[in-house]
């Protein structure tokens, strides 16, 4: 099991969802959490105009996607996020993959892969 955390451009969410659905949805709904985050990397912040001055924000708004997947789905999920989120410009984001020790479905108490 792996935990995939992806930082993406907000406007790419729909494309990423479509791509993830194609590889993860097998008649059931696939699982995904989305948060709004702000941060900075190489990309410059947006330029706003305030009182005739150009002002550059120092933080950029992004979406953070979190999904837990079983081993067989790790690579397909990564590829799907790449397909949906990539524009080729600075600021496309990152994908972090970390080992997932356990997973518990609260409703039933199932553990591990069955609960993913």
């Amino acid at each position: 099991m792996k935990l995939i955390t992806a930082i993406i451009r907000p406007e790419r969410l729909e494309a990423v969802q479509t791509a993830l659905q194609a590889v993860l949805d097998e008649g059931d709904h696939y699982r995904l959490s989305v948060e709004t985050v702000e941060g900075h990397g190489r990309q410059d912040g947006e330029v706003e105009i305030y009182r005739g001055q150009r002002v550059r924000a120092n933080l950029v708004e992004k979406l953070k996607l979190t999904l837990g997947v079983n081993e067989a789905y790790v690579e397909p999920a990564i590829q799907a996020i790449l397909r949906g989120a990539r524009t080729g410009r600075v600021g496309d984001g990152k994908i972090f993959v970390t080992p997932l020790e356990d997973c518990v479905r609260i409703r039933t108490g199932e553990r591990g892969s069955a609960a993913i």
Partner: protein
Amino acid sequence: MTQLANAPAPVDPGSTAWMLVSSALVLLMVPGLALFYGGLVRRKNVLTTMLQSFAAMGLIGVQWIVIGYALAFGASYGGWIGFDPRLLALSGLPYTQNFADKAIPELVFVMFQGKFAIITPALISGAVAERMKFSAYVWFVLLWATLIYCPLAHWVWNAEGWLFKYGVLDFAGGTVVHISSGVSALVLAVMLGPRRDYRPGHGAILPHNLVLTLLGAGLLWFGWFGFNAGSAVAIDHPVAGHVAGLAFATTQTAAAAGALTWLLIEWWHQRRPTSLGLASGILAGLVAITPAAGHVTPAAALVFGAVAATMCFLAVQMKPRFGYDDSLDAFGVHGVGGLIGALLTGIFCFIPVAGWAMGGGPGQFVKQAVGAGVAVAFAAAGTFVIAALLRATVGLRATDEEERDGLDISVHGERAYHQVISS
């Protein structure tokens, strides 16, 4: 002024109705101002900023009844100040008494003027946003309204006032309201010092919600019809007549011209027509037409709006060079717009006298300049004295820690916005 106790003076129903509506419209400008200013500050200071406007409704709403009206519109002492013990708490003012020779109840006039007294000190709050100590602000508003606004209103608007007799035209408060508050805003901003995070040339402190600001600008525009067209009360009889119609038309025209001008300037300047620019243009046009609303033509009002928006834009652009932190541009819009309006009135007025461009010679222009100069000097000196007094007693500024954490939570114990998660 005296009426037989058993025989109420006849009122003009149309005029009375219009003045009642106008009074309510002017009050609506105060929440409008609160929204306008509230949207421009950071989210940690939105409540304290809006409260500065709303507090004036409570404070001056009481002050005006207790003593304000007596000082501004009571029997004149040499044209310098009014007073009449019967007007203290309005205790000797029969509800059946009419205002002067106008066929409206005097109580309606008291209410109408009271709303002006409320909004004027609230305008100043834009210059001191995000750092002034709330208790100092409360004292300042009370003292300023009593010692600066009431005398100035008496000089310019009372039939015995010395500037009125001299011939200064100030239809709805370009001098009494906007020059006085704008100049006081500048003095107070300088005395307070800039916000701890204000570093001109290195980024800007950005507005947290321009939606509020636009909503506020819309309410101000709407309320301004009462402000200006209601001010026909000083001239016309019956009030709701041709002059009120003229003031309504010039108000609408100047606001639109101001909005359009500022938008076009920004479009050219940074290639971005901004919503804050449009909102500021609305205000610049409205401020400038205020002294002239019932004295100029709608065509002249186009000039008022365009010139005021251009000059206010330039003033706002130049502000960073001077280093003072007029946070929300109270001076840049109300001070500059008020001065432009007062002077242009002397050029374009056609009733009751002809201005410089209307074949009347420079006489009225000179009178307007004198009126504006007196207002600048009096407001600046008075504000300096009041602020110096407060600085030596209650202190003017919030502590650095309060300012850092935001005045909403540290002074008022409230937050405007909570995380959705904890609601």
